[in-house]
């Protein structure tokens, strides 16, 4: 049943593409070979000024060409792990491998051509148009003095189309709604044309419509462009529904990982998220129904002193 889900969404996506009369798929051409391998081993990631690292010696392997979701409660280290994987915070120790290359060995622009990351909050400069903002995503491909080539233009078009923001392209980014802005930023990250895309809580603060749009884009990246996607999600239901693989974090360590049916259990929700919930398998995938928070004074005390 879970196998069926992606293929249906693939079909609907393909139909909409045909309706739009989509031109040749630039993103797909490049990545048609094989999806990128991406993994982190024994990562220690922390912030300068803090003695204790947030992530202390964890390993994560991302399944190539699939959507991996990082889930966990607030402060469990999801975003930190993501930033460590992207080398945005250089891990104190451990290695991140991208298609066999150690990530530090890549030049900064070279890395930006292979791995894209969209951070949680982004502020667009005043008065910039959607199209101009998406064009900035081509920076890793441009040298000094070079203006956009035809390839760049094609990638920008492709990204705008994939993110479904064609109708907004001449609008000022500042005048858009929160959901529309998020789609535009995603388009910018897509214009980077990377094999691996990391998204830090792309759906938080969005209305249901835009949340679904974002997740549809994520699935399209996987299905049509063979891109490896790692996404931090706040919403367990969303992770259960859209991810192929889930990494659950608690207090900076990987609690468990595997496919959603195996990971999203009532026991995990109790131990990681401290909630009582009912998980049922339905014909539309896993359904999670949160009931009430679990307050365990004993474990609270342990955390408090630790």
């Amino acid at each position: 049943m879970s196998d069926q889900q992606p293929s249906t969404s693939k079909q609907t996506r393909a139909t909409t593409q045909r309706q739009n009369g989509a031109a040749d798929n630039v993103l797909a051409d490049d990545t048609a070979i094989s999806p990128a391998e991406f993994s982190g081993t024994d990562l220690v990631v922390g912030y300068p000024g803090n003695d204790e690292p947030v992530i202390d010696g964890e390993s994560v392997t991302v399944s190539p060409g699939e959507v991996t979701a990082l889930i966990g409660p607030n402060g469990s280290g999801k975003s930190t792990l993501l930033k460590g994987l992207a080398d945005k915070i250089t891990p104190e120790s451990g290695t991140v491998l991208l298609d066999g290359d150690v990530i530090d060995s890549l030049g900064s622009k070279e890395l930006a051509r292979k791995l894209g990351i969209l951070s949680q909050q982004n502020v667009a400069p005043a008065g910039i148009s959607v199209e101009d903002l998406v064009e900035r995503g081509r920076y890793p491909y441009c040298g000094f003095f070079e203006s956009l080539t035809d390839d760049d233009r094609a990638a920008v078009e492709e990204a705008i189309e994939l993110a479904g923001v064609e109708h907004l392209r001449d609008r000022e980014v500042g005048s858009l709604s929160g959901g529309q802005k998020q789609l535009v930023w995603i388009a910018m990250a897509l214009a980077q044309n990377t094999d691996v895309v990391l998204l830090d809580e792309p759906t938080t603060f969005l209305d249901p419509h835009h949340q679904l749009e974002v997740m549809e884009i994520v699935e399209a990246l996987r299905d049509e462009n063979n891109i490896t996607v790692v996404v931090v999600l706040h919403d367990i239901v969303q992770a259960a529904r859209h991810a192929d693989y889930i990494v659950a974090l608690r207090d900076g360590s990987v609690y468990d990982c595997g496919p959603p049916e195996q990971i999203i259990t009532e026991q995990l929700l109790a131990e990681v998220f401290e909630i009582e919930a009912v998980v049922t398998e339905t014909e539309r995938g896993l359904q999670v129904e949160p009931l009430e928070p679990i307050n365990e004074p004993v474990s609270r005390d342990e955390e408090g002193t630790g």
Partner: protein
Amino acid sequence: MGKLLDTVAGVRTAEPKRVDSKLTALAIASVVVLIGATLVQVSFGAFPLTLQEAWSTVFDPTVLFSQEVWNAFLLGGEIPDWFSRRQLIVWNIRLPRILVGILVGANLAVSGAIFQIVTRNELASPYILGVSDGAGLVVLLTLTTFSGYLPFMPILAALGGGAAFLLVYAIAWKNGTSPVRLVLAGVVVGTIFGSVQRALFFFIDNIAVVMSAQTWLSGSLMGTDWAQVRIALPFTVLALGLAFVVTQELDVLLLGEDTADSLGMPVEKVRFAVAGIAIISTAAAIAVAGLIGFVGLIVPHMVRNIIGSDSKRLLIGCLFLGPALLVGADIGARLALSPVQLPVGIITGIVGGPYFLYLMRKKENLGEV
């Protein structure tokens, strides 16, 4: 559907044109102001000329096409003795003052624009970030104590400005900087450097040097001639040329540190390199004209309001509006209270201060670019 697409396509092609037409209009308006200001400056003064006389002297082919004359102006040779009194006044006193004004206006505007992008802060300017006061202190020291180093003034000023900027950055840095922290640190560092400048006055015995230093601190084009053009021109060409090389970097920096980083930019290095360009530019202006405030703050602001935040267009706009504004203000400085000449910095302060206040009232979230 097809119709809709056509409209969309129409809008898309129309958009860049509209923006560029704004830029063109801004450039033309600036040039008109500049020409008008030039005519006024050349004609009026202690030795009045009619507009026609002024015009014909400016476009006098015997001067314009004389290698000897340009050799004198640009390389510091002897002024030819066949110069008439009128030619001397127009070509050796009034025109170079305008030229220096153009260079200074362009430098201040462009460096202000760059500082605003680097710090992502609309309130940033060489003046507010302490760079001016740092450069100013060095220039004042050179003027009063080490006058042998006068030809190297822009370099020395750049060093002083650079040191001040580093200090401001270091003070404001706490796991990154914020617009407000940078401005506060800039004000603090600027105040300290300014105090040291004023303290220097008490060690100067020569009253004439005090007067010239005072004028210079207020920011003035008084008494500037071809020597100042020769000092400022190379650094201006260098700094402005470099500024246009890095417009792409500026565009990406404007997206914020995180995004610039994820687009593969070594943010800290680029930020310092770009700030270095702005410091050279500021230094070139300060070395010849002293501390002229507000131009670096309000010109980029006005241009951004008109044509948006695209770096290349912004810098081009600054290149036109900066000189127009400064040369225009210098008319007021030179002629408003004639025969008394005011430093142009006083005029820009009087005009710029209220503009800044107006911005504060009008915009709710003044700060981030």
